[in-house]
């Protein structure tokens, strides 16, 4: 199992990379390669050309830009896991990173690659939709900012055009608590189902904000703001989380594949979501 032949380009700048994407027929971006290379080894992907962006240091920073973190597309999972800025302002990302692959995968795989690859059972796309991340995307002619909720179209399909490249991701800083719960058959595998939550409980014990996103149940990360709003103004207690989780489980139509049936994923989603809501709403030590 070896990759098929391709022509290889190693741009020295983002401008060069964008030029290559718009001029080289069939060019694909190679970032960490932790999804693309296995697909090429198995000949599921046969790109004519690879644009290797691993040397673009412009895309490797994590910056505090006031009300958000701006993270370069080439920042690797391991750096997200260790970054004090991420721990402080996007703690759910740091929590989720422990669930992504293994150390040898996390040292290579990137945030941009994970989002652009758009595996519906991957953690970062789910957190992107949960946290209303903004994706900053450029081509040679224009730059646009896409909300994560509009970015994912279907399994492995996003709104990125062939000549476009994801450059940076803007994560609004969070002051709410969150939790991610998932079930994978083996540690580090893609999860069968992921439930991610963020909950803001006021001093009186009443829910002020509630967000829910699921992964692995449909072709894109799942979120329903109407259901989220039902929690607002209610007392944060387990009976509420039980009801909300049940409502969500009734609302989804999970995928059926060789790893798990639709019915099983529905049960998983309900159980994981209850756990994730309960944990997110727990009072945290100061």
């Amino acid at each position, binding site marked *: 199992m*070896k990759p098929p*032949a391709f022509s290889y380009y*190693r741009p020295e700048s983002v401008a060069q990379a964008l030029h290559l994407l718009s001029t080289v027929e069939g060019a694909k971006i190679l970032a960490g*390669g*932790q999804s693309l*290379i296995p697909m090429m080894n198995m000949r599921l992907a046969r790109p004519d050309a690879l644009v*290797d962006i691993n040397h673009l240091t412009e895309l490797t920073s994590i910056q505090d830009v006031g009300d958000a973190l701006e993270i370069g597309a080439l920042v690797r999972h391991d750096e997200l896991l260790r970054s004090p800025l991420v721990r402080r302002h996007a703690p759910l990302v740091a929590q989720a990173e422990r669930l992504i692959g293994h*150390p*040898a995968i996390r040292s*290579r795989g990137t945030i941009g690659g994970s989002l652009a690859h758009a595996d519906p059972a991957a953690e970062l796309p789910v957190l992107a939709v949960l946290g209303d991340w903004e994706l900053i995307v450029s081509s040679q002619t224009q730059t646009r900012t896409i909300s994560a909720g509009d970015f994912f179209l279907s399994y492995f399909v996003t709104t990125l055009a062939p000549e476009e490249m994801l450059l940076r991701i803007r994560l609004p800083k969070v002051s709410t608590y969150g939790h991610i719960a998932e079930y994978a058959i083996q540690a580090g595998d893609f999860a069968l189902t992921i439930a991610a939550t963020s909950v803001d409980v006021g001093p009186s014990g009443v829910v002020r904000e509630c967000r829910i996103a699921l992964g692995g149940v449909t072709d894109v990360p799942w979120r329903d703001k109407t259901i989220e709003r039902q929690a607002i103004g209610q007392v944060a207690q387990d009976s509420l989380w039980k009801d909300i989780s049940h409502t969500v489980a009734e609302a989804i139509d999970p995928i059926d594949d060789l790893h798990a049936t639709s019915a099983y994923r529905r049960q998983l989603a309900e159980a994981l979501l209850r756990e994730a809501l309960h944990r997110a709403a727990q009072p945290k030590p100061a």
Partner: protein
Amino acid sequence: MVSITLRVNGTVHQMDVEPRWLLADVLREHLKLTGTHLGCEQGVCGACTVLLNGQPARSCLTLAVTADGADITTVEGLAQNGQLHPIQDAFWQEHALQCGFCTPGFLMTAVHFLQDNPDPTRAEIKEALSGNLCRCTGYQHIVNAVERAAKNLREKSGEKESIQTSTVEG
């Protein structure tokens, strides 16, 4: 062909590679460092794990061209002057290998893990090794070996010999 430079176990190699060549194949076929094994070639089994600039990486999921300029440590770089690396020694002591196919990947994973976490719990060791598959020895002995290695390395570092100098240098 693309000209690249790799520093492997301290020796600098300049060579011409096809872009499609995997780092694992360049190590094995061109540098004849056959200690790095290829199991699944899709990033699942961990047998091909090497250190790339000090970080564990799947050499079957890394193109050699992408690794241009990198500092690579393979299992051949662990033993020094005929002395087994403390982690290799612990694998031997604890019977942590049977056929040995998966061993290089486990060793390289463990080397990095113990640099990062010199005093791990058993649960942390299991998590750290969860990306490496073994089909014959059984994981208990491997976990035991990493536990013993951690202890030996901690004692050794008390003797002013850090794991860093014994694995990455030279």
